[in-house]
């Protein structure tokens, strides 16, 4: 959000004139955004609509008499699911960064033999459909007897983020000047020490980007949850919503309230870390 406000306050002189000339574009932009975000408005609207008004025709376009029953139901029934998703999301972030960051450092700065091949494999890995990876994991977990364990789900979820993480970290770390590392070496730091106390702190921005996506993907994951963790004690919020739809087919007020609550992390992350999100979407796809 801060980046948006600074950009707005930094408008160049003469922009007042420009602002007057472009107000119709702003208006058009607002209309487009309203259309695009309509489903989200509708989700919030339905989450506040009382059950007896749910099937009225035409549907009520604005919750004039809002009810919070849906949200009370969420707190009473879905809190454990939200907790599980939070733990799994954080676990995935940790695993992803621990595995991806050292490899990226090596790829970017230590010139390992076969590094190019590894980068290639990582790119290809991102193209493998999740449903298929899930099937492989299912077969393995069944053999090992670790189906329905949160740890198993964290490992599976991290497969979404590790290749992406290595690519983002590598792109960033290649930009760190070699002089910085030679300086550390002259001061007597080994490669490990250089990595931990020079490279990692400098790479803070990319750590935020990777963590953010790792968390969001783990939080949003449905395929792995529904295949690898559908029978355990600790279930995720995506499965919570899915079960909700299955069991309370008619109770859309509560379903949408759960959906709103499940959207909160994405919304918060977008507001506080918008520039990191945009960086993650473009990095890897387009090289400047």
């Amino acid at each position: 959000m801060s980046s948006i406000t600074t950009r707005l306050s930094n408008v160049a002189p003469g922009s007042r004139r420009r602002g007057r000339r472009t107000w119709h574009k702003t208006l058009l932009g607002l209309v487009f955004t309203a259309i695009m975000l309509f489903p989200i408005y509708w989700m919030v609207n339905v989450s506040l609509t009382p059950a007896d008004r749910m099937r009225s025709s035409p549907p009520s376009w604005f919750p004039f008499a809002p009810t919070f029953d849906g949200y009370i139901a969420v707190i009473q029934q879905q809190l454990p699911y939200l907790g599980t998703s939070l733990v799994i999301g954080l676990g995935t972030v940790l695993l992803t960064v621990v595995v991806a960051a050292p490899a990226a450092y090596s790829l970017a700065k230590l010139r390992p033999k076969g590094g190019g091949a590894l980068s290639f494999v990582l790119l290809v890995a991102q193209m493998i459909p999740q449903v298929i990876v899930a099937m492989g994991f299912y077969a393995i977990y069944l053999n090992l007897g670790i189906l329905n364990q949160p740890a198993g789900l964290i490992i599976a979820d991290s497969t979404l983020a590790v290749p992406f993480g290595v690519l983002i970290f590598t792109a960033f770390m290649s930009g760190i000047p070699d002089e910085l590392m030679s300086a550390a070496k002259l001061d007597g730091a080994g490669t490990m020490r250089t990595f931990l106390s020079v490279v990692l702190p400098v790479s803070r921005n990319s750590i935020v980007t990777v963590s953010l996506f790792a968390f969001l993907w783990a939080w949003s994951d449905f395929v792995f949850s529904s295949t690898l963790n559908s029978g355990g004690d600790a279930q995720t919020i995506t499965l919570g919503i899915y079960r909700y739809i299955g069991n309370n087919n008619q109770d859309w007020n509560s379903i949408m309230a759960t959906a709103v609550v499940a959207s909160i992390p994405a919304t918060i992350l977008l507001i506080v870390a918008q520039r990191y999100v945009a960086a993650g979407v473009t990095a890897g796809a387009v090289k400047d």
Partner: protein
Amino acid sequence: MSSTIIERPEAAVPDGRPATNAGLPPRPSLKKRFRADQLTAWGFIAPVVAYLVIFYAYPLFKNVDLSVRDYTVRSFIDGNAPFVGFANFTAIFQNPTFGPALVHTLLFTGISIAFQFTIGMALAVFFFQNFRLSSTLRALFLVPWLLPLIVSASTWSWMMNSDSGVINSVIQSFGGTGINWLTSPHWALVAVIIANIWIGIPFNLVILYSGLQNISTDIYEAASLDGANASQKFWRITFPLLKPVSAITILLGLVYTLKVFDIIWIMTKGGPGDSSTTFAIWSYQLGFGSTLPDFSPAAAVGNLLIVIALIFGFLYLRVQKRQDA
């Protein structure tokens, strides 16, 4: 936008340091040093290599193994699964679901990408005009892409509900008749495609917008001086210069869209009948959709999907490599 993040951290290198090792004691031979450096380099990579072997290569190998054997739930327990070669693949090709699943996968992918790309391009050009609030509104466009798919899919399900959905309500208020979006075999595929287009627009918008940022403004100024109008500027400058970025956007879109599973499964489960079944859905249905799972055919369908995804994937890598060169 990406340049704000991937900025080069300016080094605070103490000045006056010699860049060479002039004053240091003689070091071990070059060859030995090279070997030691390689050992360190690989030490840092080792975790990710182990990770890829255990959590990517092995599940994929397992998947191939599943597809050439006759696995049942029993086989997992007693470890007996007879080798059947390509029998599962032959069975898949002859299955009555194969034809529809192939057509639906092609339609779903093709139509989704055509619309996502066109709308994303139009919006990128629109937002690039830099009017008041443009960057805020552009940021808001990202929201649908970041929401958990189950949230988007269930919201669309309710909006497309035959009796109480807001979409049918709007159609009826204009004098039309309501559509059974999710329960009619004619409309189910259209319904999931609409929801998927909505989810994919932000991705196309962001990438194409970053492509626009890389086009020099001088070209536009020169064109203005020569008297080019807006549509000429788009078709003669923007569109040709965006071709490389467009190719990458579309190929990545193909790879991602082929994989789409969540949206379709949550909205229609591939039905009614198999009217919205794609390969990804079919594979899941076979493997996890019933109480009596058919892992081997499921893995066979899955491997087919991997091959298709990899073809587009390699195409993408080629295009990207050519652009880097």
